[in-house]
């Protein structure tokens, strides 16, 4: 990233403050995708502990029963739900579904692709992810 190219870089890519909820959804989608990838790798390591026998498995399970373990699992639940629901929205958009129809634009040029259907999809993803996290926390801390 040289000054010559004058690229915004990672900071600009992740800056969610300037372009509305769609950019926030983009940011959350990428972040949750990376988070789920990290969880997937950690999960393989976690389940591979079964090769250490009953004692090794119990030790690993003990780690997930801590406060930190519960919080991490709640975040994983949230990432999973958001990534799934928002992923469906994005996939439909990729096929040109729900992005509006081309038409002669009128001032002030509200982009048809940023329509209420997609906004509802984004807000639904966030609300469902939050609800799933709260349910997960209630189950884990309710034990």
């Amino acid at each position, binding site marked *: 990233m040289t*000054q010559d190219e004058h690229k915004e870089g*990672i900071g600009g890519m992740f800056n969610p403050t300037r372009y509305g909820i769609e950019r926030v959804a*983009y940011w959350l989608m990428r972040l949750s995708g990376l988070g789920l990838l990290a969880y997937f790798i950690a999960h393989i390591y976690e389940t591979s502990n079964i090769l250490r026998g009953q004692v090794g498995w119990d030790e690993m399970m003990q780690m997930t029963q801590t406060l930190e373990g519960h919080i991490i699992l709640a975040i994983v639940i949230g990432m999973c739900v958001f990534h799934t629901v928002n992923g469906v929205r994005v996939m439909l958009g990729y096929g*040109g*579904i729900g992005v509006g129809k081309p038409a002669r634009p009128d001032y002030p040029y509200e*982009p048809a*692709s940023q329509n209420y259907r997609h906004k509802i999809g984004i807000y639904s993803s966030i609300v469902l992810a939050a609800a799933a996290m709260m349910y997960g926390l209630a189950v884990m801390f309710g034990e």
Partner: protein
Amino acid sequence: MAQVSSIADEQISTPVSSSKSITLRIARYNPEHDDSSMFMEFTVPCEKWTTVLEAILEVKKYFDHSVAVRYSCRQATCGSCGMIINGKPRLACFTKISELNSDVVTVEPMNNFPIIRDLAVKFERLFDTHQKIKPYLIRDDTEIESDEKEFLQSPKEVEQYIQFANCIKCGLCNSACPTMATDSSFVGPQALAQAYRYVADSRDKGKDSRLKIIDESHGIWRCHFAGSCSQVCPKGVDPAMGIQLLRGYLLGFRS
């Protein structure tokens, strides 16, 4: 005559408007001898109709003529004066200071474009990617040879692409795009929207060759539908819509 005189008297006695001043912060950077950019502040008078470009030209005229800025038409048609204004890519001639609701206006060169000097950026890559998608009608015959003299289109067929023909190549969409922020090889929303403009044109027969050009690792699949390109477009082109509709062709949703 008397009526004209009274109007003239009224204009003399009525103040045009209450003039106020704003602080204009201009990013200064010369790649030839500066290590990094710095901001220079100027206090410029403005009316409610004053545009950011007019404020910059005021600075050039009365304070510092060395400020580098590219502009031409002053009416959002030439696409020359794109820059980052208070954090967002905008056309300087199309942005009134009064609508920014701030006494401090910060102008910087567009992101994701190499800087020539101060606010002027290089457009070579934008024009290269635009040219890459073959921005012209592809077909074997021409209107000159055709018996009908012109290729007729219904209003419905025109509606399919006319929105995307409004592109003035200002580069604001490429500046706002989060993929362009990190990927130097990405084709960019401007070129992709123009690819759709020609693919959707009923007169064009070059759909397959264009889809082949954009169906590559740094092509259309790098777009993640953040939609920032559409939010900053000053002409209502909505590149995000064009890109998704174009992707519909590649995914088999459209034919």
